């Protein structure tokens, strides 16, 4: 009993860490409507500034902390609000989530570029360590707190009390909540929405800075990934508080910390339970909370009643594109693919050919995102894990039964589909953000519980997968493998397009835009969504199996870690979540772009070496450009891509297509008009109702209109 209590008390500091992050997230969500996955990245930025001024410039503790928390934190918040989130105020929660995903990817890379990669340096302790066992507790207990932990506890409690006061009693709290819901209606109430929104962001970013400075010493090295993983763990507390209640969130954080400490103390240390379950516990709790916490399923997204003041969104390409254009585009696409294939076959060396093959296989995995995100409207963050399942399935089957690799890939896809279906049944009942979190929790559980198991991944050494032989053709030759991959991609895209244009796609689209209306005509949302999720899992698994075959082994760490999966989502969604060509292009882009940048960044150094007489300032300027910047710059650009999602929710490639389709249609019409022979106008002319009068309430979007709910 004694030890149980001691263990429980030992969990309190960790619990406060969870609580601080979770409360910060809830604050951001309440005051800006953004479920800010980049909160950890913001914390990382402040922490990095703190350590640079502490270590490299030897600032005193107080000034360094003030700079990092009170200056840098709010400054980042202000910047984000001004250049980004103010354009997103009336966007849906999905757009905001994807944007924060982009920031999550971009911010740490920006920090690394500006401050240098700090992850290899050990951060110093906050201040000299004073342990509570020296002055508070008798020496024989094992409960030990250091000054950092005390500071964390004190800061967390202060923050919670201050925020509860803010929301319960101050008019600023009320105004913040009003602005989140409808900035325009707040304006009608005499509230300066701009200023309130800036204040909100500065406040929540200040909290991110505080969390960063306090939490960084917990880790052996300062690393954005660790902070993000910690943030995901803290999400359990956020969900416990229902995304709104700050006291409940605080309690949830404490409970989580205590639970973890008690389990750690009571579980045997050498069992699979201890090694696998302990780190996965927060994710498991998060997952279970999402499935079973009452009240999460019934939340319908609150929409701005005045959203119709905005210009209506452009009509989707499919609606304005005449049939002959669709046929023409596809034929043109086939020609481009054939030419590209020939160019790769004859011109590329092994290195670039490999990147192209990887890109096309990734394109297939991206197509699974089209089905689940683009068509199904479900932001799944676990497609990488499902791809990994396909890869492991393939490798295990080949290793265990010696069956043909091609058969194994198909069976691997079926296994992934099975896992996807099992996951989908409980998860599709959740709405937007919650579904994204549940799939993220699944990805992390998979990573920490299942990947280490030898019957899944083969253990420490990745399982190898041989290249198959199709008749006389040996796919061990990369060029034949390229052809094979392109054929697979073509087959998968045919499947995706048929589903998208077919009844399945139409039902999903109906569900995505109006759940209740779809139900009113007899469409079962649960069934359609489970089907979409399962199909997507099968495609991801298939892509994963192909990837393992190409690489020669099912290697989780290099091919499928969950963070890479998040980059994929950000990349695809910003390119166009419904478009097959966007999937393939973003797959290629993911592999080729960093490689091209690396080449680009090696030029200056080489030039300096071969031109020793160049002026010294030129040499030093050029010499400073490092080839290893490429990865950072590429990730920043991927992140910025996701950020543009706010402006083109249909995706940049889709938007580009819409523009060019419009231009071509107009051009053809003009020619036909001149000839005077064309059939009737393929695009319905805008009626007076559209041009002269705006789509006012009700005619624009189905959400903003008169009337009432039940």
């Amino acid at each position: 009993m004694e030890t149980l209590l001691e263990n429980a008390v030992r969990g309190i500091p960790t619990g406060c860490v969870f609580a601080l992050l979770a409360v910060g997230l809830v604050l951001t969500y309440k005051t800006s409507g953004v479920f800010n996955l980049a909160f950890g990245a913001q914390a990382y930025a402040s922490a990095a500034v703190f350590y640079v001024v502490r270590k490299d410039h030897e600032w005193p503790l107080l000034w360094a902390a003030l700079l990092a928390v009170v200056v840098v934190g709010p400054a980042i918040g202000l910047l984000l609000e001004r250049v980004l989130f103010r354009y997103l105020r009336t966007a849906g929660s999905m757009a905001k989530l994807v944007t924060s995903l982009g920031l999550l990817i971009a911010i740490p890379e920006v920090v690394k570029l500006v401050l240098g990669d700090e992850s290899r340096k050990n951060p110093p302790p906050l201040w000299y360590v004073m342990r509570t066992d020296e002055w508070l507790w008798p020496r024989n207990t094992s409960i030990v707190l250091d000054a950092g932990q005390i500071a964390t506890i004190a800061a967390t409690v202060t923050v919670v009390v201050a925020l509860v006061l803010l929301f319960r009693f101050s008019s600023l709290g009320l105004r913040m909540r009003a602005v989140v819901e409808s900035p325009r209606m707040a304006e009608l109430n005499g509230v300066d929405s701009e200023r309130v929104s800036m204040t909100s962001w500065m406040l929540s970013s200040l909290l991110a800075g505080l969390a960063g400075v306090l939490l960084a010493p917990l880790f052996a090295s300062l690393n954005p990934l660790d902070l993000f993983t910690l943030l995901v763990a803290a999400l359990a507390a956020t969900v416990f508080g229902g995304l709104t209640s700050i006291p409940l969130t605080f309690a949830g954080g404490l409970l989580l910390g205590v639970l973890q400490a008690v389990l750690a103390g009571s579980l045997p240390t050498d069992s699979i339970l201890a090694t696998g379950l302990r780190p996965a516990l927060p994710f498991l709790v998060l997952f279970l909370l999402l499935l079973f916490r009452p009240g999460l399923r019934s939340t319908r997204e609150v929409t701005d009643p005045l959203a119709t003041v905005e210009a209506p969104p452009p009509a989707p390409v499919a609606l304005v594109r005449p049939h002959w254009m669709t046929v023409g585009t596809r034929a043109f696409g086939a020609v481009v693919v054939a030419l590209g294939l020939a160019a790769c076959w004859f011109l590329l060396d092994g290195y670039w050919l490999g990147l192209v093959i990887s890109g096309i296989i990734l394109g297939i995995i991206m197509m699974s995102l089209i089905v689940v995100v683009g068509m199904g409207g479900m932001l799944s963050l676990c497609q990488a894990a499902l791809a990994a399942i396909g890869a492991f399935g393939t490798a295990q089957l080949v290793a265990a039964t010696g069956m043909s690799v091609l058969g194994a890939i198909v069976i691997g896809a079926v296994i992934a589909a099975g896992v996807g279906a099992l996951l989908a049944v409980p998860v599709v009942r959740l709405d937007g953000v919650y579904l994204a979190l549940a799939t993220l929790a699944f990805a992390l559980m998979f990573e920490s519980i299942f990947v280490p198991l030898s019957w899944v991944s083969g253990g420490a050494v990745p399982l190898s997968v041989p290249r198959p032989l199709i008749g006389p053709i040996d796919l061990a030759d990369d060029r034949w493998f390229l052809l094979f991959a392109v054929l697979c991609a073509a087959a998968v895209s045919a499947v995706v397009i048929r589903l998208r244009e077919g009844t399945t796609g139409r039902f999903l689209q109906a569900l995505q835009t109006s759940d209740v209306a779809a139900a009113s005509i007899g469409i079962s949302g649960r069934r359609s969504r489970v089907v979409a999720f399962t199909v997507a899992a099968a495609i991801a698994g298939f892509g994963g199996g192909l990837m393992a075959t190409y690489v020669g082994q099912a290697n989780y760490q290099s091919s499928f870690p969950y963070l890479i999966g998040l980059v994929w989502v950000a990349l695809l969604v910003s390119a166009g979540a419904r478009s097959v060509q966007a999937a393939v292009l973003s797959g290629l882009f993911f592999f080729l772009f960093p490689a091209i940048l690396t080449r680009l960044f090696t030029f200056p150094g080489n030039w300096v070496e071969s031109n020793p007489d160049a002026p010294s300032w030129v040499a030093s300027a050029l010499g400073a450009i490092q080839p290893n910047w490429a990865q950072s710059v590429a990730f920043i650009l991927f992140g910025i891509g996701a950020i543009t999602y706010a402006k083109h929710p249909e995706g940049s490639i889709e938007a580009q297509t819409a523009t060019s389709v419009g231009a071509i249609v107009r051009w053809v019409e003009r020619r036909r008009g001149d000839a005077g022979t064309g059939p009737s106008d393929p695009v319905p002319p805008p009626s007076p109702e559209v041009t002269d009068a705006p789509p006012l309430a009700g005619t624009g979007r189905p959400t903003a209109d008169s009337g009432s709910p039940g």
Partner: protein
Amino acid sequence: MSGPLLEAEAVSKRFSGIVALSDVSLHVADGEFVAVIGPNGAGKSTLFNCLSGVLRPDRGTVTFRGRSLERLRPSARARLGIARTFQRIELFGGMTVLDHLLVADRARTRRGGLWSDLFRGSRPTSEELERCGIVLELVGLTEWADRPAESLSLGKGRLVELARALMCDPALLFLDEPSSGLDRHETAEMSATLETVSRQHGTAIVLIEHDVPMVRRLAERTYVLDYGQLIADGPTEDVLGDERVRVAYLGDNS
């Protein structure tokens, strides 16, 4: 005289302590046109939601053609032939008017699905187009069939909702304030369409409205709700002349 189609007996619903409906009974016969009126917040929409399956009543039974609806979700009720429109217009984004009707038709006939999408293609058949054409004609949207539904005016949008509901070939149709937000011309158009639907197709209709002339013109019988309770029901003219209805709902100038 046709048999009972929908029978709701003593339906009650509370929301965190507030009584939204208490012991409300409502009967609709085949082909009947019934209105539900009452002050704001009287529980009219809650009643609709309980009947169409969006909400589950705390007490009471709802049967449709003698079959209990208790455990059926809205989509299952729709497949039995219960369709509805919404007070706040609910259209599908990115779809033309015709698409709305086709989707509803596919949901009713259960044609299509994963395999048929993959192996048989999903172009609309001529029978499907014919069925859609009939309904489009009925609601007067034929020339708007290929327009994106989002670009239409509110009045046309409400007609699209009606047409979509009709594609389910409903025996019973719930309409939640179909004239709300419409100007007088659009209201007239809506009234005329509803009259046709009711007369020519024998669809039973339950209508929530604040437009008293429209109720007077269309409904054979009227139920009046106030504070979640039924305060009057009977032939429309009688109910509208009732003293209690006058005090609770109509006021003096009607």
